[in-house]
């Protein structure tokens, strides 16, 4: 119970940042929140469903491009475009799964990477959205949203600041929704089946669990959320290009780093990971390339010396797990 109160206080403090904090902080934390959404998704994929994808940037890019298409070509509201982005990403994850699920382990990783690159090259052919060089989101489409005017009436500030405020809150809401949904899913019948599959797929089939169906479900749902996150990211960024939208480094490599150092296969792992990642980024911001080298070294060190990540090692050492995903045996009415 206490853990939920601490969590709630933390979430509330984060919600107040756009009102009390500087705009630079809001923009920084927006990126951090989006990375957390991606990390929670990747953790579900790799940590729980055993699907080590190196191609999740495909769904970020698809979501972002679908959002741009909705705004520029169809004149839709960007927020609506973001949701369409999630749906398009989920729809396209079906053929991707059809192809990638024939591959296992390292081949699955390489396959998803190849798919993401094919997606990047395909979208760079889309002339209406700027082809290889990309295009900008019409300023007025974002800034003239009714909700922006409401935010300005309430908190003042420029239109651009109100857009940052809105996207930040949407990112925070997305984080909370994904956290709650992951928690509920992992403790459900399907989540239990998924953990059984992760431990022993042959035995799981023998007790009636269909591994492929569960993995496909996780793949589809994470593509949906990753697509929404892609749309949201590029509402705030305001400019799209194939290289930025389908960036392996930004949307997958950093995300893997976050999950691995935080603790893969644990629900709080990505949260710890993203805090460490943000701290390192702030501390090492002035060192340029050295920052990336250090990040890599830290990742390697954690993989070697704390294979279950910071949170996983903490649980292992202390035996204290405030967020157990397990099901305890029911207490007995009459002791034996």
């Amino acid at each position, binding site marked *: 119970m206490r853990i939920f109160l601490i969590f709630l206080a933390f979430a509330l403090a984060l919600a107040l940042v756009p009102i009390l904090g500087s705009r630079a902080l809001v923009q920084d934390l927006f990126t951090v929140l989006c990375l957390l959404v991606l990390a929670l998704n990747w953790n579900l994929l790799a940590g729980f469903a055993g699907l080590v994808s190196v191609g999740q940037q495909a769904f970020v890019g698809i979501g972002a491009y679908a959002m741009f298409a909705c705004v520029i070509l169809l004149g839709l509201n960007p927020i609506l475009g973001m949701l369409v982005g999630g749906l398009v990403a989920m729809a396209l994850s079906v053929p991707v799964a059809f192809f990638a699920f024939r591959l296992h382990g390292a081949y699955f990783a390489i396959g998803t990477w190849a798919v993401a690159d094919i997606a990047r090259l395909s979208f760079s052919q889309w002339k209406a959205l700027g082809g290889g060089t990309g295009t900008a989101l019409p300023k007025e489409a974002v800034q003239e949203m009714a909700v922006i005017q409401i935010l300005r009436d309430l908190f003042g500030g420029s239109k651009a600041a109100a857009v940052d405020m809105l996207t930040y809150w949407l990112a925070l809401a997305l984080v909370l929704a994904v956290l709650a949904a992951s928690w509920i899913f992992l403790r459900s*019948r399907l989540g*239990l*089946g998924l*953990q*059984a599959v*992760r*431990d*022993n797929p*042959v*035995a*799981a*089939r*023998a*007790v*009636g*669990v*269909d591994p492929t169906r569960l993995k496909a479900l996780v793949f589809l749902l994470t593509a949906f959320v990753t697509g929404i996150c892609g749309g949201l990211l590029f509402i705030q960024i305001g400019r799209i290009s194939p290289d930025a939208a389908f960036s392996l480094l930004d949307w997958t490599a950093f995300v893997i780093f976050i999950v691995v150092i935080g603790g893969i296969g644990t629900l709080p792992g990505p949260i710890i990971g993203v805090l460490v990642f943000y701290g390192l980024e702030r501390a090492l911001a002035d060192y340029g390339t050295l920052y990336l080298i250090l990040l890599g070294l830290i990742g390697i060190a954690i993989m070697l010396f704390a294979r279950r990540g910071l949170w996983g090692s903490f649980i292992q050492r202390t035996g204290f797990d405030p967020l157990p995903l*397990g*099901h*305890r*045996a*029911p207490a*007995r009415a009459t002791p*034996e």
Partner: protein
Amino acid sequence: MAILSLQGVSKSFGALKVTDEVSFALEKGEALGIIGPNGAGKSTLFNLITGNLRPDAGQVLLDGRDVTGESPMQRCASGLGRSFQIPQPFGHLSVYENLLVAARFGGRLSAAEAPAHCMGILDRTGLASLADRPAGALPLLNRKRLELARAMATRPRVILLDEIAGGLTDGECVELVATIRSIHAEGTAILWIEHVLHALTSVVTRLMVLNFGRMLMIGAPDQVMAAPEVREIYLGIEA
């Protein structure tokens, strides 16, 4: 009517015929033992029955229905439970959760029904005090018990046991056999591969001998064990 029947089931790995035209029927509530030397194709036969392997020829019928094209999970949901020769626990899940998965999926029980069902089985298999322990940390006897308990949790009408008594001490074996007898007494049909003959013959009413993938003989245990060709092939004793 037979709960499980095989009709001319054959399987080859390359040039090696590991299952050769095997046909038999397991009646409802019956207990049938399978013996045979190492490499006789006993485990392969189990994998053909559970759907982990597809036969090259022949049919597998579950309760009169042809399930030859069905997956292991579909067959499990139709009432086919199994234990593995080498225990295959879900290592990161607790003992209780190992049963819960089986009860919720294969056993098709609701969230409200499953816990009591699982606890009842944990009591019967002597695992109740270990319910919240991680299954990966169990020693051999308890892993064997867990194999049996998890198969029971799927609410099978036929249960396949693959050398479940192997590697246990006499005392442990007696305890496990008592549990198997109680499952049989409830009307669950049992198909049991075992090298520990005294354990097997204390439960089964018929015995089948496999050799080089072929069914050599099937009948009452004492008759089968007395047959000269069984003594020669299986026990290595000159008749």
